[in-house]
């Protein structure tokens, strides 16, 4: 989800003139038209908590403006000065005259340009101490000698490299002078897309809108690095983020990760993370799983994974809410929430995180795991590569609240969250079309599974046809898509008592009160059939600790060890009102 120039224009409008944040003034000197970049830089800076003032000085008049004591620059005191220089104005001979110029003259001129840049730096710091950003030069066209350029003793490409290196070397001799590598940006997206000759011809703006966006983001990135606003910690989900599949369901041998085959995507992603870790970025884990499953997986598959459990400085593995986990991680590491990144394949988890802890940077993940590694590389951990409505929400929330959001444990706000998911629940009764899926679910579902019985299709068919049994199943759609059939509840009815033989649900939709809604509707259904009591048993396994206390949560009372009952003569279990719709077939919707 790349951001376009238009997106930045829109976001800049919504941010308005006076966002809240750390004041930051940027003076831009340029040798070409560059003003249209303003909204991009502004949005990027605001999203990191700055309140920027950006001022463009006169067109191609560096020395005049910098040295004029009565001028606007002299009067103001800027935090950052960007000296955006282009070859066309600073060293046109390198482009247009290369065939005429001798190596000696070239070297002389190169030194002149470097000297000029140093003088500009000095001029910018005559009366104040701003941070300074210099640009590398790029040759937008084709090399004069074309394909032979690389073979010459004296090549244009090398001359340019030498020029850029000399400037970078000079920059490194001064404190707080940073390089904006325009040449690198151009090669990243390709010169064809980066430059716009038309625009340059009639408006002296050499860059396309795409080029402007890239430059703007890079300017912001350099400034974040200068201000130390880099991200320090990445908090990662496990299932379908670090490997394909759900380890609690499929077991450590079946999750997809490895140096060959489809697991390669996850392997590369882990490798990228490992590199980041060796650069000092802290890795942490927040996963809804059983700790033993996770430990086992990292042990058994250690040859297939670059990351080991020890690479994660903190792991929060359990069934609690991830926003809570991230808060704990931040506290334990003693770092700010705004220096953390949260990566999770589930759009629901991401949305919840953005809502509850907006300071944490929660980017959208690419559709396929194959793109995770590339995505991470571009992320640079302090560059916003992907801008979406979610990011705008974060900016807005930050602006509106102006303080940290603390996690509220009252159910009220969580309910609001569930409401925003637009969940549509459909409960089926004895739906024969689903038999294959239901049988498969009994085989594969291990975590949210109260009795862990395995049924064949024939078993399920028999239950559906037998009037003493009722087979309930349900599917859920939400605003992110259709989750399909996600749950199964089988009851046996005898003497006005319904005993739950099977109760399972896909781990994908755990924690959204769907089971609460299902039990409530099923109880109503059974009540109308004359049932007065529902009983259920919890048969503990290594995998299903997550439902250990499910029955009490649903309102059942304990009868014996792991045996529970719910009286449905009078009041029925609570039906959550935050579902968009709940249908029960063959009965009508409520």
């Amino acid at each position, binding site marked *: 989800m790349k951001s376009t120039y238009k997106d930045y224009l829109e976001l800049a409008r919504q941010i308005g003139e006076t966002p809240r944040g750390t004041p930051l003034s940027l003076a831009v000197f340029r040798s070409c038209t560059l003003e249209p970049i303003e909204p991009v830089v502004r949005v990027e800076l605001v999203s990191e908590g700055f309140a920027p003032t950006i001022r463009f000085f006169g*067109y*191609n*008049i560096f020395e*005049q403006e910098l040295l004029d004591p009565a001028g606007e620059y002299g009067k103001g005191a800027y935090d950052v000065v960007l000296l955006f220089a282009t070859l066309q104005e600073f060293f046109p001979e390198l482009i247009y005259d290369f065939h005429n110029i001798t190596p000696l003259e070239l070297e002389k001129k190169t030194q002149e340009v470097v000297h000029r840049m140093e003088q500009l730096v000095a001029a910018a710091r005559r009366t104040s101490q701003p941070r300074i950003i210099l640009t590398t030069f790029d040759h937008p066209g084709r090399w004069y000698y074309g394909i032979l350029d690389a073979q010459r003793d004296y090549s244009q490409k090398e001359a340019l490299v030498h020029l850029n290196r000399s400037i970078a070397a000079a920059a490194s001799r001064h404190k707080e002078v940073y390089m904006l590598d325009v040449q690198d940006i151009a090669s990243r997206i390709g010169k064809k897309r980066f430059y716009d000759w038309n625009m340059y011809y*009639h*408006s002296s703006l050499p860059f396309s809108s795409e080029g402007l966006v890239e430059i703007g983001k890079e300017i912001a990135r350099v400034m974040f690095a200068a201000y130390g606003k880099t991200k320090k910690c990445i908090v990662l989900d496990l299932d379908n983020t670090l490997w394909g599949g759900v380890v609690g369901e499929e077991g450590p041998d079946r999750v997809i990760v490895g140096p060959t085959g489809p697991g390669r995507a996850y392997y590369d992603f882990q490798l990228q993370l490992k590199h980041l870790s060796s650069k000092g970025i802290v890795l942490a884990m927040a996963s809804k799983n059983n700790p033993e499953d996770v430990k086992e997986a990292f042990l058994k598959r250690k040859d297939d994974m670059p990351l080991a459990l020890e690479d994660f400085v903190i792991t929060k593995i359990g069934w609690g809410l991830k926003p809570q986990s991230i808060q704990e991680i931040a506290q334990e590491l003693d770092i700010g929430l705004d220096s953390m990144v949260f990566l999770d394949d589930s759009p629901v988890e991401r949305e919840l995180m953005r809502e509850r802890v907006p300071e944490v940077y929660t980017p959208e993940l690419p559709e396929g795991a194959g793109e995770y590694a590339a995505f991470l590389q571009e992320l640079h951990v302090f560059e916003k590569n992907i801008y979406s409505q979610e990011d705008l929400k974060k900016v807005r929330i930050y602006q509106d609240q102006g303080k940290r959001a603390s996690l509220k444990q009252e159910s009220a706000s969580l309910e609001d969250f569930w409401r925003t998911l637009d969940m549509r629940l459909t409960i089926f009764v004895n739906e024969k079309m689903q038999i294959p899926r239901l049988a498969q679910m009994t085989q594969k579902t291990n975590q949210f599974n109260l009795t862990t019985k395995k049924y064949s299709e024939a078993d399920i068919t028999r239950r559906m046809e037998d009037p003493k049994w009722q087979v309930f199943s349900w599917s859920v759609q939400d605003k992110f898509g259709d989750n399909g059939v996600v749950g199964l509840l089988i009851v046996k009815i005898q003497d006005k008592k319904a005993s739950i033989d099977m109760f399972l649900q896909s781990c994908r939709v755990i924690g959204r009160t769907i089971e609460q809604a299902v039990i409530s509707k099923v109880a109503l259904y059974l009540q109308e059939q004359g049932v007065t009591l529902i009983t259920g048993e919890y048969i503990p396994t290594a995998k299903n600790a997550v439902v250990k206390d499910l029955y009490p949560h649903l309102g059942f009372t304990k009868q014996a060890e792991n045996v529970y009952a719910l009286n449905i003569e009078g009041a029925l279990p609570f039906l959550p009102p935050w579902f968009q719709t709940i249908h029960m077939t063959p009965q009508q919707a409520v």
Partner: protein
Amino acid sequence: MARNSSLVFEGRQTQLKPLFPEDVTQEYVSWLKDPGVNEFLEARFKKHTLATQRAYVRGFDQKTKFLWGIFDKKTKKHIGVITLYDIHPMHKYANYGYLIGNKKYWGTGAAQEAIALVFDFAFLKLRIRSISTGAYAPNVASVFNYKKMGLSYQGTFKERLLYKGAFVDQVWYGITRDEWLSRRKKLAF
């Protein structure tokens, strides 16, 4: 030629004063040599010195051919020039041209204000009926600004002007007195 105070105009940020040969400074001359400034000017084809520029200014009699210096009202700095010339006594049409040499004043509205002051003088005092000016077709900023002042497209001379090694169209824009009178009310100055 006496300095005619009736030819001095004041706007919000600029002041226009007729320019005389002795007012020509090195800075003025330097503008004509600055490629950023003279990109679309005839001036770029010629050599410029104080002497040549003084001779140029002398050619304006300030009665039938006018040349004003544009000055920053506050600092009194000379920032550009504007001309009104080719005034036809019978047909009452005229041409105008301008340049803001001091780049600090680009995009500040100084040019628009200077042009408005001259248009007021031309249309209201001299009773001129129409004013026109030409532009290099690739100079979209210029053409945009003409439109903003209320000028409208009059015609094109195809491939008439040499620009960056190729011949480009010259587009003409013009405005009548009535059009100016109705436009000037809406402009910010």
